[in-house]
């Protein structure tokens, strides 16, 4: 029995899961990325990416779309979260659920529906529709973490600021926004990361007119260009890794937990 009572024994299924579904695929991606099609070590895949103007262009566009989407989500999401967390303006928890409700529905289905809606309204699919659809898809992921931190924020900070002479506007900019940074950061992570790598949304909402980085990876892998696809995936992973590292540092700089 003692074998089962050890805590590490209980972790075994998770270790197996992590090895099988996280570590192993990652190793395979790295191996594939540094091999040519015949299995020899090569940096050719990366050289191809750096010299391929098309790929670099798509890469830049992906980053641009992701940044735009994230910024718009902050601009729309922060005021929404602020209103939801303000007990004077919002007395019921139902409103919060209404805002979060889209998260319950599969993103693909929502995207298809959005595309259909544009179609019905006779709106030409393109970058504009792509951004609108992305904002619609990812807005709840921005609102929720910010709402969460704003609604839990000790109201004595706000009171202390206004007591010291801050107008409501100054209270907002000098106290509430800085103190809600952790919420904004998790919102950015939850919106920026998936938008960098998305491909289905761009496919549906631009009728494949606009290709994002995710689309290129998908196309390469679909056409059995495993090694190049793996290299591109690795590039994307590194970008996401770097952004999350930057965000971690920012958290410490702000001194808020």
């Amino acid at each position, binding site marked *: 029995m003692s074998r089962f009572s050890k805590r590490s024994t209980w972790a075994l299924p998770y270790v197996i899961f992590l090895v099988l579904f996280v570590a192993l695929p990652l190793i395979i991606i790295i191996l594939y990325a540094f091999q040519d099609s015949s299995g020899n070590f090569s940096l050719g895949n990366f050289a191809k990416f750096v010299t391929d103007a098309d790929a670099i262009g798509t890469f830049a566009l992906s980053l641009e779309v992701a940044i735009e989407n994230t910024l718009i989500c902050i601009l729309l999401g922060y005021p929404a979260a602020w209103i939801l967390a303000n007990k004077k303006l919002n007395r019921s928890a139902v409103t919060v659920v209404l805002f979060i409700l889209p998260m319950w529905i599969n993103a693909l289905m929502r995207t298809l529906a959005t595309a259909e809606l544009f179609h019905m309204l006779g709106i030409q699919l393109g970058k504009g529709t792509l951004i609108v659809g992305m904002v619609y898809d990812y807005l709840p992921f921005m609102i929720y973490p910010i709402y969460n931190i704003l609604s839990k924020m*000790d109201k*004595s*900070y706000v*009171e*202390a*600021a*206004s*007591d*010291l*002479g*801050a*107008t*409501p506007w*100054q209270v907002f900019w*000098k*106290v509430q926004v*800085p*103190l809600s*940074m952790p919420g904004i950061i998790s919102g950015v992570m939850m919106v920026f990361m998936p938008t960098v790598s998305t491909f289905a949304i761009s496919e549906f909402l631009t009728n494949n007119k606009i290709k994002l980085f995710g689309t290129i990876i998908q196309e390469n892998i679909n056409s059995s260009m495993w090694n190049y696809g793996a290299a591109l995936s690795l590039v994307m992973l590194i970008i996401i890794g770097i952004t999350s590292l930057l965000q971690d540092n920012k958290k410490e700089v*702000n*001194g*808020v937990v």
Partner: protein
Amino acid sequence: MRMENKDYIIELNNISKSFGDKVILNDVSIKVKKGEFVTILGPSGCGKTTLLRLLAGFGEADSGEIRINGNDYTHVPPHLRPVNTVFQRYALFPHLDVYENIAFGLKLQKVPGNEIDKIVRKVLKMVSMNDYEDRDVESLSGGQQQRVAIARAIANQPKVLLLDEPLAALDLKMRKDMQIELKEMHKKLGITFIYVTHDQEEALTLSDTIIVMNEGKIQQIGTPTDIYNEPQNSFVADFIGESNILNGTMVKDKLVEFVGHEFECIDEGFGENAPVDVVVRPEDIYIVRNLESAQFTAKVKSCTFKGVHYEMFVDTDKGYELMIQDYNAFAPEQEVGLIIRPADIQVMHKERTCNTFEGEMVDETHVKFMDETFECLPQADAKAGEKVTVQVDFSKVDLIDHIEDGTLEGDVHFIIYKGDHYHLTILTDEGYHIWVDTTDIWDKGDLVGINIAPADIKIVKNNE
């Protein structure tokens, strides 16, 4: 025509405030002189913090008027009021360091940078926190955070400093040190301090004026000495310091009866044979070996050394228990004589002599009051729905452990020991107060069932 008096920095006139059904402040009026150290003292839930918050501008009173320095500030938002607050849990901004916290208000006022430097350094020195400018506020201990919070509040040079139980979170030793520092700071700054606390010792130590509050009402306003020596009611007497609170009868002017004896006193104007509360401080009862020369006798029950004095409990010849403090020890079981001087007897009007409720007849043998129907003795020609006044003696209310067996449920809100019985204030779940005399021992916060026997319900028709 009301005279505006410029001597008063703060005037609160007839302030009332309720949250939902609960009345927090009930017609509170306070005047504070410039430069005074005023303490608002009372148990938790008495409305003292709400009052301070209204002064700071957090929330508005339902009715009444707030004047600061002669000007009407009743509807002015907090950032435009010439007051600053030291919050109970400090509320230092965690995203700013010590310097930035203190400079927060000054920067908003667009004070020039070198001026800010000077002020920050000055106030940090004042709270003995020099060289802490660059520290992260979360790395500071509770006491240090408290000092920074005070520094931040006084950096703005307010006319009035509001302090909301600022020392409550500190340990005893640090609290004592901070009390002395606050007092000195008050002298140095020369501004008005309004200090909220539930700690009577703190209030007595710090204040020029104490405002004692309970249940949303001001019980007494006075100097620490006044409040201690001449409490105006049994609540104040019990809340401030140790005291023997007893039921008494004012036989005539300058003669009061309590603990089964008559005593000369200095009070008059209560009328003849009027029921009163009597307060005698434990240090004001003289205890002597010589039984002949004493006013009455007692037997020592216990004797404990308290450092400076001995604290003794004695049973008097008529069966009352008294607390006595004396520099001399008397052994338990010893027969002693007791003397109380006329000037040491504080006589107070009784707030009430029985429970009185507004009620309504349900039928001839049932009456409804406190939202509950009670059986009563048959009332001749009582009509259903008839409004009546119901009276129940303090000693006729039954309290029981099993709350399910009670007609009403409530909890013990307040306890005063009256020498031979306890006088309890019970708060029912419906929010009514019942006062109960009992010899049973209950603790504050105990849940109790409440029953009243039909014969003990006195019904007075309102039109009679």
